[in-house]
């Protein structure tokens, strides 16, 4: 029901309702301003409004030397993890649809296991397990990437499975009827259509992946959050200002990637290259007319 708007919950305001709405609007604005004032006053009381804490963000060298290296680490962890997680997800997702129980069952177990346990537990396990079991020195970067690949690869596997199942049965039936083999049906008929349908869900999941790189902070990965919560405060003693600025950077990146997902979804909805309807990300909350950004839970 994409045309559905929520303003059917109330009548079009008449003169009295308009007057009441104006009064209520004023009340809300006053309360909001009071709340904002209380917060700002509290910040002022703790000397958090001192210009010395905020001006570092106007200096180019602070961005270049302290923030951008963290940003690059965050982006490269996200990029490397995405590049591995997407094929990993395809292998697992297609594996779960296999006719052979020997492939289907292990793929299912892997997907369900890594989806059910928290990512942080995985990252800790890779860090400590790598050295204890295999005698390897695992860098925080590697631990974050491996954790992200295992978790997001499993989520992507579910997206892939849903995407392939979203292709109408007639497509594969027709393909078998003209004599294609199983592998050919998957490669030539199902996957090309499924990919178009699952593209938006994959990009949404990659936003989640990007957000989750911040977990690296807990294992001392020198990412963007590390720049905001450790590096900058140790230089300028400005934890609150720098965490706020870093949050803005994260929000901008996620909104941009989220907007790409929305654009892809519109494109695939009107695409005639596929018979499948777009797949929703697992756990996604779909509301008509939502703004771009993260839609999946977690």
């Amino acid at each position, binding site marked *: 029901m994409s045309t559905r708007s929520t303003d059917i919950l109330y009548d079009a305001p008449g003169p009295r309702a308009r007057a009441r709405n104006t009064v209520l609007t004023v009340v809300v604005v006053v309360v*909001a301003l009071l709340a904002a004032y209380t917060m700002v006053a509290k910040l002022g009381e703790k000397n958090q409004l001192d210009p010395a804490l905020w001006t570092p963000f106007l200096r180019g060298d602070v961005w270049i030397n302290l923030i951008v290296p963290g940003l690059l680490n965050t982006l490269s962890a996200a990029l490397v993890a995405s590049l591995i997680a997407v094929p990993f997800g395809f292998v697992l997702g297609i594996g779960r649809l296999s006719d052979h129980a020997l492939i289907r069952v292990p793929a299912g177990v892997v997907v369900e296991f890594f989806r059910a346990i928290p990512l942080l537990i995985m990252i800790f396990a890779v860090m400590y397990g790598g050295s204890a079991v295999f005698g390897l020195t695992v860098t925080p970067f590697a631990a974050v990437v491996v954790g992200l690949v295992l978790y997001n690869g499993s989520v992507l596997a579910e997206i892939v499975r849903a995407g392939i199942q979203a292709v109408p049965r007639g497509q594969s039936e027709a393909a078998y009827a003209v004599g294609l083999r199983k592998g050919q049906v998957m490669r030539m008929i199902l996957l090309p259509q499924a990919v178009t349908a699952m593209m938006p869900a994959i990009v949404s999941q990659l936003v989640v992946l990007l957000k989750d790189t911040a977990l690296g902070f807990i294992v001392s990965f020198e990412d963007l959050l590390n720049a905001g919560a450790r590096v900058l405060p140790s230089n300028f003693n400005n934890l609150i200002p720098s965490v*706020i600025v870093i949050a803005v950077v994260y929000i901008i990146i996620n909104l941009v990637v989220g907007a790409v997902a929305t654009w892809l979804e519109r494109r695939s909805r009107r695409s005639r290259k596929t018979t499948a309807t777009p797949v929703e990300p697992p756990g996604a909350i779909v509301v008509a007319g939502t703004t771009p950004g993260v839609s999946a839970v977690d």
Partner: protein
Amino acid sequence: MQALLDEFPVILNAFWLTIRLTLASGAAALVLGTILAAMRVSPLPVLRGIGTAYVNILRNTPLTLVIVFCGLGLGLVLDVSFSTSLSTNYLWLSIIGLSAYTAAFVCEAIRSGINTVPVGQAEAARAIGLTFSQNLRLIVLPQALRAVVAPLGSILIALTKNTTIAAAIGVTEASLTMKTLFEAHGDAVVPIFFGFALGFLVLTLPTGLLFTWLSRRLAVVR
């Protein structure tokens, strides 16, 4: 394996803290999320704007950042204090972070639920003269909430897993305890990991089943 048995009480305690974190943040997020959803469908553009801004900011910020802001920003810099005990204080601060973050997702789930209520319901309510808040409270929200039991279940499962991030500010829930045990028992990393993984499976799988059952039982028959 022996390490796992020896440390069993410690592990149980850690998971008990995880459960308490989940329940406390879940309850707070449900209340805050419902209020936010009501704001986002209200007739006042200001309220809608505040709700939208809140949801978009919190949803697009990494949870780790939210928790670090609550723990270090609110706790250390602004001296927000709930308890004289340092660990209890960080526990409450992490609950604030978890519920503030989760509320954004609860709000979106409830809003999607409002969209599943047939238009005729709200129109009939208006026809008999109910105001916006009566319409929402008596007609739309009860049906909307019953429609989103399953999504709220997935949010609760995600929250259970997300409580591990409270480790960032030193709350000794399951993940931080696992890390401590890894350090103490370097020879038993694998059994300890599977012990904790099993713990999370025990928490999340029944939650999923329960909410699937509930969502069927509570579904509005149309």
